[in-house]
């Protein structure tokens, strides 16, 4: 139509921010305390019995893992359960589309907001985990933040795609059971993929999470990235944004406008 205006997506982002500010305490409980609880459980509990993973001290292994996990969880939750409430219960999307905002801009605003919230959670994990001693390279951690943001946009887009097909809130249990949970437990978040049989490990690389970890973990530990491999992982993450975003937009357009 008329291209996608970042200012219009920004107006959508701002609306979410204002609502978030009103509900800040419950938001912080889910988005800050939740990942920190996981971090403490893994670092204290598992850390006591886990050996080094991939040659890295367990705390330094699990902190970037939790940063990636929380980015995924927060971004996915925002564009599934929360976005579906805006779409079907509050009819916020209808209200927004009766203005100058186009559907692409609305969904981009949703994704940008989800990724922003994801960053807030990842930053909390980074600060707490770092002060605890789980971040050998602070410079690397800073470099990892834009990567986490980009990946969170992808997780948000995957959530939007699920929302595009959802008939009710129950439908999201499929998404969380068969999409986000495997990325939590089978993707190298809190222990290495080496522990799995080869076929399962190979299958895990079809998911975006191992690619994100392959970028973030070498940065926070200070091991550094190998450019060509990094570009490959980056490309996978990019496709995991572009394809679900385009599919979600097309599906929601049919659903709302036809």
């Amino acid at each position, binding site marked *: *139509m008329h291209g996608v205006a970042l200012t219009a997506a920004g107006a*959508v982002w701002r609306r979410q921010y*204002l*609502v978030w500010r009103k509900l800040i305490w419950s938001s912080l409980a889910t988005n800050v305390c939740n990942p920190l609880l996981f971090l403490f459980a893994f670092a204290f509990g598992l850390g006591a019995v886990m050996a080094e993973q991939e040659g890295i001290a367990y705390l330094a292994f699990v902190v970037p893992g939790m940063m990636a996990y929380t980015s995924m969880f927060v971004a996915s939750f925002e564009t599934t359960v929360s976005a579906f409430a805006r779409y079907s219960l*509050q009819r916020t999307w209808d209200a927004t589309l*009766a203005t100058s905002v186009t559907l692409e801009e609305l969904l981009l605003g949703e994704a940008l907001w989800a990724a922003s919230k994801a960053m807030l959670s990842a930053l909390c994990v980074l600060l707490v985990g770092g002060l605890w001693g789980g971040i050998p390279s602070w410079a690397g951690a800073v470099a990892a933040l834009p990567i986490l943001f980009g990946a969170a946009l992808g997780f948000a887009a995957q959530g939007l795609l699920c929302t595009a097909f959802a008939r009710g809130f129950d439908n999201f249990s499929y998404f969380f059971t068969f999409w986000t949970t495997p990325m939590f437990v089978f993707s190298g978040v809190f222990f290495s993929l080496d522990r799995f049989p080869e076929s399962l490990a190979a299958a895990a690389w079809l998911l975006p999470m191992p690619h994100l970890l392959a970028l973030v973990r070498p940065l926070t530990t200070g091991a550094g990235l190998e450019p060509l491999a990094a570009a490959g992982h980056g490309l996978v993450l990019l496709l995991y944004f572009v394809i679900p975003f385009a599919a979600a937009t097309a599906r929601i357009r049919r659903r709302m406008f036809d």
Partner: protein
Amino acid sequence: MAAPVILARALEKRFGEVRAVAGLDLTVPAGICLGLLGPNGAGKTTTLRMIMGLTLPSGGRLEVLGRPPTALSRTERRRIGLVPQDSNLDPDLSVVQNLLVYGGYFGLPAAALRRRVPELLAFMQLTEKAGARVSQLSGGMKRRLVIARALIAEPELVILDEPTTGLDPQARLLIWRQLLQLRAQGKTLLLTTHYMDEAQRLCDRIVLIDGGRILAQGSPAELIARHVHGHVVEVTKPVPPALTGNGLAHEDVGDAMLFYVAAPGAVIDRLPPEAVYLHRPANLEDVFLRLTGRKLREG
């Protein structure tokens, strides 16, 4: 003559097998208030959504401000404001924030909004509620806020889908007064309503639709004169057979017979002294019921 604000020709919308709008011709000139009336499921909301570009037509031609609604540019969209049937305000935000956020969606600069928001609050008598959360507002206040929100970009076309449904008489009166003021400012209003007194009071022109087609159109007075002849005499049964046999327009409504006449004497003078009857001026509701029938609709 200036180009019409809305022009529809053979406009059609199908949902699967259902033709919600089945070949609608509609011309809305600038500066009038047009009422789109019809029973539930007549195709009113679908028509409004197509005009807003929120539903894509299946066929026919539709132009709003001279262009297909989906081809309107970002700034052209500011010229149209929508008051939807369901209040889709942001319940967690304050009254002012709702207006600011909506202004942001239209890309209005902050300076313009600082001037516009207090004006709108005053216009819809919400100034005292400026800082209140929407979830704390009464139904009437929410409705006024939805109208204020639709006016944020100073649109020239305002589309209102049942603006006063569910409101008490005081709240309706206030909204009517403000809508009449908008019309006096030269804005074009397109509204749907189930209240015939509302349509009669606000609308210059009525388009009555059912089954996605136009049944009748004209000014309220024209429609009343044409379809129900100005007066209604309701005669409780039994009705003398002479009355129904002499070409007077009439309708059987169960325990009574309605006669639509230009002069009430045509019926009253022929009634026996013991007859029970009620005479009143005909109104738009008579037109509506006469043309769309008295059967209850689903939905």
